């Protein structure tokens, strides 16, 4: 098994390097230059030149590329122009926030997606099946940033000011301003309260996709002979569906994890902007706009690795769940 994992990782290195290289030249070719953004009237050429030197922008592109790849292999992603900090530190600040948000979104999406998909499959062509699929597709068809804004209006602003509901959710940020003074329990509740709206904005969109895959997969499994054997054994419908059929139907769903990581990444950019969530999505998009090359490169590199790792994890999970698959 470990031999297989090594082979996959080695195989992925050229892929990730390839992506990083493309992005490096793409971003560097983009017009505009970080120093330009910081200038104001009366600046002399000498000052501009000095600033470019400070950023190491005075060398030609290919030299900077070789230096960058060299440094990267030793884990040093260089310095961020806009954050004036080593990029590695910047990533360490932002990465956990995106992981928390993505993990909770994936969890909620997969949980509800699987349950709803199963219900739809078990009750195929019933009123429940079609109404559920319309509601799910309704959210699936919604731009995530619009859904986020609607959620803020309803579950944060109107809930408190207009409808006076007892529970309403903060519209932004990861924690309240008095977070440090809360008890341990209080801290957890506060974090979860801040997670609700952003997670919903991401999960509602993902859920429909997962539910649809699950429904299709369940429909296939429910028709197979061993399900009939389970019925012949006199097992109640609940056990047949949730024990025998569900586990088989879950197999293709797991590979979805690999598919959804890229979606999650682009989806979070909007959610992180609207909910003021200091995550990777926002970091990298702003870095592009400010031509903060080291951060863009590190972000792209991180993203590509994350996709490769997610796909690998999905395949390994497949082996864990399906005994028929063995990786030598």
């Amino acid at each position: 098994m470990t031999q297989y994992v090594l082979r996959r990782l080695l195989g992925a290195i050229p892929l990730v390097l390839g992506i990083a290289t493309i992005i490096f030249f793409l971003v560097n070719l983009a017009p505009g230059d970080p120093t330009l953004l910081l200038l104001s009237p009366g600046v002399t050429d000498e000052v501009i030149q000095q600033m470019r030197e400070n950023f190491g922008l005075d060398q030609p592109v290919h030299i900077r590329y070789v230096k960058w790849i060299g440094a990267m292999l030793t884990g040093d992603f260089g310095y961020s122009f806009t954050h004036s900090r080593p990029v590695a530190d910047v990533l360490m600040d932002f990465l956990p926030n995106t992981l928390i948000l993505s993990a909770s979104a994936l969890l909620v999406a997969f949980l509800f997606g699987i349950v709803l998909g199963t219900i739809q499959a078990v009750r195929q062509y019933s009123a429940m099946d079609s109404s559920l699929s319309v509601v799910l597709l309704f959210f699936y068809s919604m731009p995530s940033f619009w859904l986020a804004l609607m959620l803020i209006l309803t579950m944060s602003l109107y809930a408190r000011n207009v409808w006076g509901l007892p529970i309403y959710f903060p519209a932004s940020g990861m924690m309240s301003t008095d977070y440090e003074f809360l008890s341990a329990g209080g801290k957890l509740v506060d974090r979860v309260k801040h997670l609700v709206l952003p997670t919903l904005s991401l999960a509602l969109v993902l859920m429909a996709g997962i539910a649809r895959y699950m429904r299709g997969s369940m429909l296939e499994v429910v028709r197979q002979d061993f399900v009939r054997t389970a019925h012949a054994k006199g097992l109640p419908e609940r056990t047949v569906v949730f024990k025998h059929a569900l586990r088989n139907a879950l197999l293709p769903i797991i590979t979805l994890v690999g598919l959804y990581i890229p979606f999650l990444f682009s989806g979070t950019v909007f959610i992180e902007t609207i909910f003021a969530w200091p995550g990777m999505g926002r970091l990298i998009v702003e870095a592009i706009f400010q031509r903060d090359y080291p951060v863009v490169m590190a972000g792209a590199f991180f993203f590509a690795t994350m996709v490769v790792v997610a796909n690998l994890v999905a395949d390994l999970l497949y082996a864990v769940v399906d005994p028929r698959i063995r990786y030598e």
Partner: protein
Amino acid sequence: MSDAQTAGASLLAVSDLRTWFHTDQGVARAVDGVSFEVRGRETLGIVGESGCGKTVTSLSVLGLLPQPPAKIQEGSSIRFEGEELVGASTKRMRALRGNEISMIFQEPMSSLNPVYKVGDQIGEALRLHRGMNKRASRAEAVRLLTEVGIPEPDRRVDEYPHQLSGGMRQRVMIAMALSCEPQLLIADEPTTALDVTIQAQILELLASLRDSHGMAVLLITHDLGVVAEVCDRVVVMYAGQVVETGTVHEIFQDPQHPYTRGLLDSLPSVDDPGQRLRSIPGTVPNPIAWPHGCRFKDRCSLAGPGCEKPQDLVELGVDRAARCWRVES
């Protein structure tokens, strides 16, 4: 071959069973008025070409057909030990399945859940019907695996279905079916998917287990060779109806219905190897629109004016009948 007479009261009595399928092309009357009995310790064979409704009959007994398309019509009756099963509560049916009546299927390759260990799947019925705990059901599973002739049962019990051969998987199915000592075992083409050598072993195993457990067997097959070897009595089905019943001896020696004769003629016989096999011309008609009168008339070499009107099942003796006007009672 156990003697039919000492079998005692009828274990399973199916009378006038009609199971129809409501599809958007129309109503398919797959099983159209089938009646037969299975007595204790007896092996009844239902034989017929595929599409004659024999599998639907067996699934109707256990109520395993999905209700929206399939529907058991009013007036059908399936009595098990005198208790009417048509319309019985799902709870009652569940208590019967795998416990009093269990079933094995044709495709061993796909009849076992690929993601669970063999031992778990066997033990499941025991845990459900006998309330055994995990450890006890596992021990019983190992015993059952030995009884069905699987080598190294202690290792095999923890293996997954894909690690066993087709024959062994059928043995596991049998072990699973017998786990709760059922009174009736329904075997739907148990050997069709296996190659010949394994087929013989499985049939021999079925016969020995039937005698040692004293259970009745309802064997569904299209292979007359299997019927001859294992069954006491035979019911021949064609186009959703019973066309002939009788003991194995009567059917093989003195077939009354032209369709039964046709089936027997297409069997290669040992003592006349060179003879060309005669096959029955034509194909089974579409169940949505059964032909009028005798449903075999278009393929019957003795077809005549009498075949135009619907044929009744003519009594020829005790448990002996045929659905053809040419037959004299």
